[in-house]
């Protein structure tokens, strides 16, 4: 167990319906939708919230320091606030931030808000812009890359190809149960394998959509959690692992930030068999090829066992190890919100009121991840029971 000065609980969750088009509202109104819902969910009065943590990626909407404008919609007027961003991990990072700000004793209630209105910018150009302007920026193509696919195919052959497609189908099945998900499509493995090539062997249906959405979570001290009506979900631990700016692309093994994060988290929290001990896993899966590779890394499967697990249906909502009951990132990806949505969905599963995509069992521990930057990972562990400090 990580050291923790005082316990922090999630006492409210708010999430917009993530959609490809939200031309009916502007950015501020998008954020306000999530805030309104978290206030309703937590029965907390906005004026009683101490601090707002705001996160997104500025260059996706082209607004400098958007937290200043968003005071109009996030309720930060006259309050303390922070703007924390780290790329795709932003949503997960602001959860760490809120956890720190409450656990530190600085604030008793912190509202973390992650959002993105992808349709207002050009996502792939925005991502390409993260590469070094003096070298890679001329070459990189956002996150649209088939390189992982090529590596998986080389290692595991056709079964990997089938599993990546099957995993995508599972995400679609889950997303249809989650009315907040963006892509709630009915697809078959064949549809995936025959969809348009984006970056061979990555196909359109392997890839996440560009979504508009916001997600807000209320983090409170133990004392305050007791006073609030919602069943508290406890923050147990989080681990952030980054890697060098331009990593050794040749030996990707050198790049196993996911495995490293999992190793640290499991060791600190006495997890020896994640598949048994963790009730549900909300993983940041921007594309199914990455998902297939990463779920193995997070679960420390050495020999691609996850491929059989996919084909056996072990990752289904009612399977041995439910993966992304929400439909995951391939079903909704408002980037600045995506990783905090993982935490929100994990918390909903622990609360037991996730709705149609609730897993049919009591969830004691839930894990969620964020992914971004140059292969950065943020890993969160949430629990139904208070962590023993």
């Amino acid at each position, binding site marked *: 167990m990580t050291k923790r000065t005082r316990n922090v609980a999630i006492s409210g969750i708010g999430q917009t319906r993530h959609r490809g088009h939200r*031309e009916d509202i502007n950015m501020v109104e998008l954020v*306000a939708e999530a805030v309104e819902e978290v206030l309703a969910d937590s029965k907390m009065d906005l004026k009683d919230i101490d601090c707002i943590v705001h996160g997104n990626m500025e*260059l996706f*909407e*082209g607004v400098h320091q958007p937290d200043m404008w968003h*005071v*109009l919609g996030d309720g930060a007027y006259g309050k303390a606030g922070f703007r924390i961003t780290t790329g795709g991990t932003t949503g997960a990072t602001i959860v760490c931030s809120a956890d720190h700000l409450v656990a530190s004793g600085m604030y008793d209630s912190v509202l973390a808000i992650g959002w993105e209105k992808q349709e207002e910018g050009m996502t792939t150009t925005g991502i390409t*812009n993260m590469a070094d*302007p003096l070298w890679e920026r001329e070459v990189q193509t956002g996150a649209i890359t088939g390189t992982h696919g090529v590596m998986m195919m080389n290692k595991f052959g056709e079964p990997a190809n089938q599993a990546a497609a099957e995993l995508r189908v599972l995400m679609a099945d889950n997303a249809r149960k989650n009315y907040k998900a963006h892509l709630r499509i009915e697809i078959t493995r064949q549809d995936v394998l025959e969809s348009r090539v984006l970056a061979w062997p990555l196909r359109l249906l392997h890839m996440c959509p560009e979504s508009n959405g916001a997600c807000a979570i209320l983090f409170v001290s133990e004392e305050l959690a007791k006073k609030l009506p919602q069943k508290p979900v406890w923050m147990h631990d989080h681990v952030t692992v980054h890697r060098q700016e331009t990593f050794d692309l040749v030996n990707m093994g050198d790049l196993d930030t996911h495995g490293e994060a999992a190793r640290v988290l499991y060791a600190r929290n006495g997890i020896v068999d994640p598949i048994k001990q963790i009730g549900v896993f909300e993983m940041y899966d921007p594309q199914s090829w990455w998902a297939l590779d990463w779920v193995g890394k997070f679960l420390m499967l050495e020999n691609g066992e996850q491929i059989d697990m996919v084909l056996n249906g072990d990752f289904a909502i009612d399977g041995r190890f439910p993966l992304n009951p929400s439909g995951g990132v391939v079903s909704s990806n408002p980037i600045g919100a995506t990783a905090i949505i993982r935490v929100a969905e994990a918390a909903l599963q622990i609360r037991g009121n996730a709705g149609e995509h609730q897993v049919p069992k009591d969830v004691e521990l839930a894990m969620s991840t964020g992914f971004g930057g140059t292969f950065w990972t943020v890993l969160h562990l949430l629990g139904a029971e208070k962590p023993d400090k």
Partner: protein
Amino acid sequence: MYTTDKLPLDQKDCFGKRGLMSIPYRYFAGVFLSRALIALRDEKKILGARCEKCDRVYFPPRSRCERDFSKITELVEVGPEGTVEELTVVNYEEEYFKKFCPMLDIPYTMALIKLDGASTKILHRIPGDKVKRGDRVRPKWLDDDRREAMITDIEYFEKV
């Protein structure tokens, strides 16, 4: 220049690469603000947003009251005349702005104007540097065929 005893470095290797950060955007005002912006274009009307809870009339309009977070659904006409409350004379030109904004010749005045009936002040421009605090001003509208549902449909404000 940065130097180190570990690695030979040369001043001639220090230079600057010109580049852009070029990304296209589409900003959606949303249904509520669109109504107010389109009124500028079609009716030459300046609409503010009235919060039923605290009765403030906000300009620029917004669908949330910043103070009490209540939803705002009512647009009310303000102005068109108003009183200059704050101002600053702008003496510099920014080439970049000219590409995207219909700029006035310098020196011009950037002002905060309390429009009649509004609780807050509108930011807009007044030609020249002669305007004073307390002066009454009115909008100078672009011709009907040039207005495009932007705040710049009001070319500038001018003395009454």
